[in-house]
């Protein structure tokens, strides 16, 4: 009886072949689309790798002016770090209001901001190039030693212009840079800092700061932009796959239903030789399994063939791209497993129904 069971469950004809091809189409869709997104992921990763990444900025909340990171957080940092204090000031030169901006003081022992920052003395000030342009448009000529008044709600301090922070500098060219020894009222607080710069290599420090609830922002956006963008693509793919999986379940169930319908004579033969309903259900379940396995294998293969065909021949039509479909665990195993699960989910009820129908119909003629 076991031989009969196996032979009937694995019998192959043109209908079985059509069923295998149908399941293969579903798997091809999932494997192909996932492989293409993985290829896009890999391509954009390659683009991101070309870009030099800067340090991360760690702050409390989302604004420099409001951020107050407790000094105790520094105990969590084992590697290099630069401490920065930001004060919102009104800038006046020769009694003319030039603009409102940030005055930034840094404790930059690791030289992350600029190796030239150390000579900045307590009374010196570096001015962003754009702010300086604004001053010059107001007919104010700045030269070394020109007095610049930084006014805050708590009072003001007079510093001497020393040099210009040019475009391409670390901080906004609207800001002014002052020494950490700057006198009150913009002297750095001893209890807190506005933000901390952490090198991207210090992953453990960054993780600890993230756990502490600080906001971490990469100072070079491209890499994070592309990584975030690819995560969005993958999320979108899951949405598409989810809606598609409904169709795949219906498709596989329909195919198996047709197969059972056509195999009524086999069922009758089984009844004549004393096959029980559970044996018949088992045959169709096993058939569903092996049809799904072959369909899955064929589908994964076709998925790569079709997508590679598209990406390989697209340049001939003038569409050169950096997408190379990638075979990964998620683009091979996942569609295969889904086909298997949906195959069994679609086929099992049909198999059970077939066996129950036999029970209802009573003894064979």
């Amino acid at each position: 009886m076991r031989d009969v069971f196996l032979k009937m469950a694995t019998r192959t004809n043109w209908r079985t072949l059509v069923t295998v091809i149908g399941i293969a189409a579903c798997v091809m869709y999932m494997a192909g689309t996932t492989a293409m997104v993985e290829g896009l992921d890999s391509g954009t990763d390659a683009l991101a790798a070309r870009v030099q990444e800067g340090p991360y900025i760690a702050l409390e909340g989302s604004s420099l002016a409001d951020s107050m990171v407790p000094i105790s957080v520094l105990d969590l940092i084992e590697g290099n770090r630069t401490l920065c204090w930001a004060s919102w000031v009104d800038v006046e030169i020769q009694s003319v209001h030039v603009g409102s901006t940030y005055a930034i003081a840094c404790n930059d022992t690791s030289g992350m901001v600029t190796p030239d920052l150390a000579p900045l003395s307590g009374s010196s000030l570096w001015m962003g190039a754009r702010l300086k342009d604004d001053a010059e448009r107001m007919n104010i000529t700045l030269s070394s030693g020109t007095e610049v008044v930084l006014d805050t709600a708590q009072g003001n301090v007079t510093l001497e212009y020393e040099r210009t922070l040019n475009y391409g500098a670390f901080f906004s060219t609207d800001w002014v840079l002052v020494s950490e020894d700057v006198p009150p009222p913009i002297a750095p607080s001893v209890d807190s800092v506005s933000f901390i710069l952490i090198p991207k290599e210090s992953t453990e420090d960054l993780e600890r700061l993230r756990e502490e609830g600080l906001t971490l922002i990469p100072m070079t956006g491209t890499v994070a932009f592309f990584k975030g963008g690819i995560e969005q693509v993958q999320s979108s793919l899951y949405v598409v796959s989810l809606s598609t999986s409904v169709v795949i379940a219906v498709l596989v169930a329909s195919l198996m239903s047709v197969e059972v319908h056509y195999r009524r004579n086999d069922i009758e033969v089984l009844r004549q030789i004393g096959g029980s309903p559970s044996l018949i259900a088992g045959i169709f379940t096993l058939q569903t399994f092996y049809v799904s396995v072959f369909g899955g294998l064929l589908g994964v293969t076709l998925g790569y063939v079709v997508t590679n065909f598209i990406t390989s021949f697209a340049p001939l039509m003038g569409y050169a791209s950096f997408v190379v479909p990638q075979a990964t665990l998620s683009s091979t195993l996942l569609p295969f497993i889904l086909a298997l699960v949906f195959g069994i989910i679609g086929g099992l009820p049909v198999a059970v129904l077939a066996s129950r129908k036999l029970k209802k119909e009573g003894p064979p003629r």
Partner: protein
Amino acid sequence: MLCIALLSGSIPLLLAIGSLPQQEFYGENVYVVSQITNDEPLPPELLEDLRNQTWIDAISPETYAFCVVKGEPVVVRGIDSEGFIAIDRGEVTSGSADGVFLLAGERLSSRLDIDLGDRIILTGSTHPYLEEMEVTGIYESSGPPNDEILIPLNRSWGISPVGKDGLLAIRVRTDDYDTLKDHLNGTGVPLVLGDGTKSVVLNSDERFDARLATLLFQHPELGGERGVAHTSVFVQQAGNSVQIVVWGFLVLNSALITFGIVAVLAKAVVEKRRDFGVLSAIGANRAQMARMLLRDLVILSVPAVLAGILLGYLLATALGAGDVIILFGHSIQPSYDLVLLVQLAVAGLVLSIVLGTVIYHLISGERPVEMMRGVAAREERKTLEEVLSD
């Protein structure tokens, strides 16, 4: 109905994804002038020259930077507000675009909960840089800027990789492409002129093949510094790459939906075999039965297709309204129009009727008695021994 719903829901979304890179730069009669390499940036004089041409309707000098705002990737566009709004045809719905402005796209501001007066930290695109600006307005656009941040050109110089006075592109609206091309040729400035489908290199011996660009992109060591300098070509590559992924989705989607319809119709037709057997036994010929099937298919397919299109439309619209599909910071909105809806309906109907008829012809060769018994006539009746030895 589910298959048609999937078809009518996914195609407009896929078409919208595919057109995103083009929408970013192009539009109706909008052309893009960009540098060939970083070594030869667009000179500011070119912008002034183009501004003086009467046959140009609108002109927008721009820079682009990739940033992360509130954890989400966001494109930051450096613009001259007047020229940009003239090209984009959007509007500032609240606040203003005067002075040192930061306009948040309307959809972006609602997605990330950005309000007027909020301060936003912006960082360098390809180099470390820190800037903080105040949101001064909300900008509504029918295109990608609805998901972007717009700042003045001079504020973007620190963020984008171009530096002071730099421009990554000059977008021009004119209905006279040939005059634009001739004029640019006459300036002697090496540049790339794109119309959304192709790019031409002007005033340079540089003939940068797209396939070579891809090779250099994948292996920059082959091209030295020039390998990473061809910004415009790489933008084109990124656009192409998205297009090709979309094509792949469309091809695979169509194959899946065709098989889905085949499977469902096969099941339906097979379940009708007993009826065909009875009809055949009382004298109906194949042509009569085919006509009846065709009538049944039309009666079943028309409401199924219409309901499927409605369901797909509702699904895609809900996905768009809920900002569920977001690619590189841009929410994908399905692009429906009447022609597309009619095409989808016709395609669904034709597909259903043709496939149903084909399936009928495959089974209609059976004898009436076999059809009534539900046994395939093509499979000869076999003895028990034959079945077991099969």
